[in-house]
């Protein structure tokens, strides 16, 4: 996913999240409001509908909320992956290890000698 797409997706998810949350809060508010106009008999039919649909709606909103949070999680993961995988290795030429050919030669000579010595004696 490109940076742009990631950014857009993030923004989108964030927007959906806030909308869904607001809707869910609204849904609970419906229950409260009904307390006020208890006497209105005319409403009662539509209220039955609200009751059934709102069960469904609340459920639905909750699921969407969860789903989006999960999306958010996977998004952050891909962002982190991007960060990790797109690192450019830093070349560290400055502290080049001292490479002492003389010393190596000496050591090798020594080594070969010891190795052969036993054999030949």
């Amino acid at each position, binding site marked *: 996913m490109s940076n742009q797409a990631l950014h857009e997706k993030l923004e989108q998810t964030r927007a959906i999240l806030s909308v869904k949350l607001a809707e869910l809060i609204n849904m609970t508010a419906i*229950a409260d409001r009904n307390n006020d106009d208890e006497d209105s008999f005319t409403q009662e039919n539509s209220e039955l509908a609200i009751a059934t649909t709102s*069960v469904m709606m609340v459920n639905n909103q909750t699921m969407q909320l969860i789903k989006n949070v999960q999306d958010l999680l996977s998004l952050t993961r891909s962002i982190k992956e991007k960060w990790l995988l797109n690192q450019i290795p830093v070349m560290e030429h400055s502290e080049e290890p001292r490479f002492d050919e003389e010393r190596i030669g000496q050591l090798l000579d020594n080594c070969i000698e010891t190795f052969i010595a036993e054999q030949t004696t």
Partner: protein
Amino acid sequence: MTTQEPTSEHTSSEIGIKLALDPNLITLALSSNPNSNLHSPTSDEPIPESAGKVDVDAQLEGDEVENKTKKDNDKRLKFLKSKDSLVSNPHEIYGSMPLEQLIPIILRQRGPGFKFVDMNEKELENEINQRDDNDNDICSNEKEDTDAVKEDAQVEEDFMEVDYEDKNDVANPQNETEHKTNESSETDENVATVMTQEQFVKRRRDMVEHINLAMNESSLALEFVSLLLSGVKESTGMSSMSPFLRKVVKPSSLNSDKIPYEAPTKKEYIELDILNKGWKLQSLNESKDLLRGSFNKLSYILQNEHDYWNKIMQNISNKDVIFKIRDRSSGQKLLAIKYGYEDSGSTYRHDRGIANIKNNIESQNLDLIPHSSSVVKGTDFLHSVKKFLRVRIFTKIESEDDYILSGESVMDGEGKNGEPEIKDIRKQIQVLKKIIFEKELMYQVKKECALLISYGVSIENENKVIIELPNEKFEIELLSLDDDSIVNHEQDLPKINDKRANLMLVMLRLLLVVIFKKALRSRISSPHRVTNLKVDDDILLIRPILGKVRFANYKLLLKKIIKDYVLDIIPGSTIVEKEVKREESHENENIEDENITRLNKEIRAFDKLLNVPKRELEIKLPLSMHNCPCLSLMLESPNYCNALIHIKFEDNAGANAVAFNTTFSDFKEVEDFLHFIVAEFIQQKNV
């Protein structure tokens, strides 16, 4: 049609029913009626006329002309009109006619002596007014007609009559007004003339639209009723159903019943309300549980993720090769790290050195799961897969013709000391690197062995290589950590050759590093990627080491020969051993690249190991001799394991100067040759 009657024919030809809109819209359904064929449709004839008349006032002159034509030529109209349709639209007949044809028709209708030029608006208006008067006169006649019609209509089917009446009502309100009074018709006309054409067209369109809508609605209603009816009386219902509905919907599939509506009482309402609230409460509770559950789950996951990335951040530097990978067994997306030496010049392909990075939740650690060991599960894999090389030296016991173990290389630190839980991912990588390095070393050693059978190198089994020398035997073996020979002999006493065994192992490793470096160099300097090392030139692991030993043996032998054949015979002579100057290899020297220069430098550092052994033995003859001849031998092993002896002899003294420069590969021949030289040229001189 029901309205048609022979008696009304000639009167109604003058007036008829007046329609203000395209009558064909309505006639469509009726046109199929066979009655219209039987009776001449003349009674309807005036309808278009009047319709046309309304049109005339507002429309273009062309239209006007048309209308005029038809007004004046009833006969013609009658002839032209299609016999099937109840009413016909004159515009339909003449509208599409080109003027060249239309004008002659008009002329003919007007009778001889009429010129088209004479026709003007005023005249036409007059004519129209005249006609309107006639219309009103005939109104009374028409009423009689309709009475007659009604009588007749009763014979016909009911719904047909309905149709007819509908048409009359809906389609022609204007007509009715005209029926009522003269004046009203005139005012109508006046209004009509005042209207602009656009307004008129618009109104007409609106009206047509509305009528279409109404028709649609009514036909829908009819369909509905028919379907409902088909439940009770199928044939009746079917007959009024549209073919489409008949085809698509099963008859009598709709039913209705009347249910009396009872207004709920207050008690009922309250119950309902309580029920509603109960539902709501329940759903909110459910949602709460759901949210809480997923919150717990997600925060757990989040915590793990957080830990994981933290650990990655701490442990993985940007020097590591990290990439995404999909686990073959589980299909999970994972991060993998490459710990193998491929980028450092390794060409080992049996294990690419890739490990998945897995988060071990229990131990709060990152686990590396190498791909090669996918079978082995869990954290024990490092232990069971850990392989290492061991070099053992066996010394031959002359008397028994058998070998005893005289030296063994030790295993490196952590494996033996054993931290069963390797916490740090860095350490895990180290271990893995070590393992893969050892595996590759063994692999390359085995490859090299194929060339060295004639020098006493053999592969005993998949993981064991034996190098035999006259008085000792080397064993290079790839072992896993839990091998029996390790477990049982952990506390063995140090042996005499342990150090040599270790040195040999170190040298083997160094040589593999040199191979890597060379491969890397050639990869950088040439565009062709080296995928496989050539055993002959590239893999130098056993040969340099073996060569050193063999060369030492050759040298000993040669010295012995010299001693026997030269030193012992010529007293006072000595051997001087000299290093042979080597010409520097200028391979790749001309390539200006920082990396290559560095690699060259690094490779050169190991020349001591890699150089082909070469020694010069100069024999110093006693100084007392004047003009002493020069005898020197050069021993070298071009392919590390063989021996070539160059013998140089120069004697410039005296008249007959002698010079030899020969090469032998057999020590026996060297013996003979030395003997010959010493006997012929050196001893004789002395004598």
